[in-house]
């Protein structure tokens, strides 16, 4: 069995390690490239969202390298993601590939459904070994998230452009090699040390921008045209609203015990939307409210073109923006989006944020001197 999976940010480091620890042969898809997207666009339905197309490209490239088992996430609706695997399977079959697809669905009520499917992958491993492998993967996810948060905080103040990104990539390779929780911890320490070694400018007055929107688009830098890096190198402190560890906690662990998660976000959204609208729509609204209340200068909303739950959120954001007093930029991205256009829009948005700051400062000054 040669296992592969779709890319999602740095998830491939985690899954490669997990499957290797389970004694499986892993063939990770090649890093997402222009070819990946072209392949996905060629064979996927035209109006499917970008994540489906990139996933499909990943699968095709991995199958070409000899993979024969695809591990994919599923869902119970109403977001389209839950039905991706079904469509992708048919497309790949029509293309003549021979493979099996294991679709991990979030448990509806019982965690055991998920465990059964995982057992398919685990074969003859003992429960203790499996538990150890899963625990290591979990530690790695948390370490990756921690490292990423620090990177976003550091990048805005880097002295030499690109130094933070370089340190981040080095740090990722430390974590990739880690096979046990102890090694993960040591790797994280080393990576964080590397990050703080990079020279920093004086920290003052940077704009603060929150990233909100659809999960895949936020987590996968290739899909969002590296918006975090672009913003960071323009001197903006960025905070991302979604992290894999928090997402897993809420959607896999808490929901399987029928416990609600993400309460603070839901409470913040309640004034505008009280109900689940599929996908991440309600959270998007809640995250925007929370960034506004924390005094952020602005938020950037990222969604894949035609994403239904996010369009519901998009209809509400103008009202949130007016009532909470926070500007936002909504970016609907697909395979046609280009970096140059994005940079222009980001620069214009940041100019606007700077102006607002100056205005409110001068108003405060007038008030103090009158």
């Amino acid at each position, binding site marked *: 069995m040669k296992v592969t999976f779709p890319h999602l940010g740095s998830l491939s480091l985690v899954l490669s390690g997990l499957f290797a620890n389970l004694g499986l042969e892993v063939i990770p898809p090649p890093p997402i490239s222009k070819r990946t997207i072209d392949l996905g666009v060629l064979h996927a*339905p*035209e*109006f*499917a*969202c970008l994540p489906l197309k990139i996933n499909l490209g990943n699968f095709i490239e991995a199958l070409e390298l000899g993979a024969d088992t695809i591990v994919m996430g*599923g869902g*119970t*609706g*109403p*977001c*389209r993601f*839950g*039905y*991706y*695997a*079904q*469509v992708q*399977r*048919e*497309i790949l079959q*029509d293309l003549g590939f021979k493979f099996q697809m294991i*679709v991990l669905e979030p448990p509806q009520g019982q965690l055991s459904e998920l465990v059964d499917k995982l057992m398919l992958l685990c074969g003859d491993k003992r429960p203790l070994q499996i538990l150890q492998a899963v625990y290591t993967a979990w530690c790695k996810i948390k370490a990756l998230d921690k490292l990423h948060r620090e990177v976003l905080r550091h990048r805005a103040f880097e002295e030499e452009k690109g130094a933070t990104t370089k340190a981040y990539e080095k740090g990722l390779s430390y974590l990739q090699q880690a096979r046990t929780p102890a090694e993960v911890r040591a790797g994280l320490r080393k990576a964080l040390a590397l990050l703080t070694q990079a020279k920093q400018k004086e920290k003052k007055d940077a704009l603060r921008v929150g990233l909100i929107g659809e999960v895949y688009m936020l987590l996968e830098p290739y899909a969002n045209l590296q918006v975090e890096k672009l913003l960071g190198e323009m001197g903006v402190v960025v905070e991302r609203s979604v992290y894999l560890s928090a997402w897993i906690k809420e959607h896999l662990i808490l929901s399987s015990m029928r416990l609600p998660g993400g309460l603070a976000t839901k409470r913040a959204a309640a004034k*505008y*939307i009280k*109900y*689940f*609208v*599929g*996908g991440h*729509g309600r959270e998007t609204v809640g995250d925007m409210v929370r960034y506004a209340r924390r005094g952020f200068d602005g938020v950037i909303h990222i969604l894949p*073109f*035609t*994403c*239904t*739950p996010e*369009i*519901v959120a*998009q*209809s*509400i954001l*103008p*009202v949130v923006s007016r009532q909470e007093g926070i500007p936002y930029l909504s970016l*609907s991205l697909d395979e046609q989006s280009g970096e140059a256009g994005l940079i222009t829009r980001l620069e214009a948005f940041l100019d606007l944020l700077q102006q607002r700051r100056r205005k409110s400062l001068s108003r405060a000054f007038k008030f103090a001197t009158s």
Partner: protein
Amino acid sequence: MSFSVGIPRALLYYYYFPAWQAFFQTLGAEIVLSDETTKHILDQGVRAAVEETCLPVKLFLGHVANLCEKNVDFIFIPRVVSVERKKYLCPKFLGLPEIVRHCLPNLPEILTPEINWGQREGKTLAELKKLAARFCHEPGSFHRALQAALTAQKLYEAKLRQGLTPQEVLHNEKAPLPAGNIRVAVLGHAYNLNDSFLSLNLLKKLRALGAEVITAEMLPAQAIAKGVKSLVKESFWTFGHQLLGVGNYLLRENKIAGLVLVASFGCGPDSLICELIERFYKRQRNVPVLLLTLDEHTGEAGIITRLEAFVDMLYWRKAR
């Protein structure tokens, strides 16, 4: 107390209007429908919505705006989450009241009971009861209204099974003669197909070309169940499930000469469901498929040309 409830002539109107009408009339309400779709109504919706919203939701906003001009006391926009177990409606129906509230100014009060039949039957009934209690204090009025609604809905669905389209039943039009030399299935959401403005009278045009038209509503639930048997995993959208089931059933039972798939631009569920249906048909290689995508720029001439060419081809195949 007399009061008027406005119902937009769009989206779920085509699925559940008879039930809603019976429910509110039993409670003593006057029902006010928005006007039939015009360019002006659609434009109103297009202006109010964020640009990426799908066509039927834009049109819905236009109809709500139209109702506002009619000075109704309430507008009924239920939050329909699910109508059966383990299935949802499209996310846009889940957030429809919010979309309306945040896109249109100066609305009358909106009635938005949550209909979540698949997961919370008790809560759904409680919400409807609360709604009924606001308007009619007579004991037992809620149950009478609910019964009337269910009966009306059953009657409506029975009529659809006889081969009438929702438009024909709701507008009391005469059924067409069952003439037609070739059978063509038209699969798409009822709110697109039955709005004569959106669909540019697609169904009537096909009939005029001599085709006998079948739509998803005309088939019984057993047909859908038969159709989805071969799927690894059923769709979790009620309408997607219906389309997939009917599409597969008609293909397997060899019931039709051609299939017209109608999707609206940017429809999330349709992007996947239509893809699957198209693939299943292509594999069999004996029933041609025409895929029409509707948006606010769709021109009548283009649709007519494509339909004529498609029907011509079906005749040609039949003669051969």
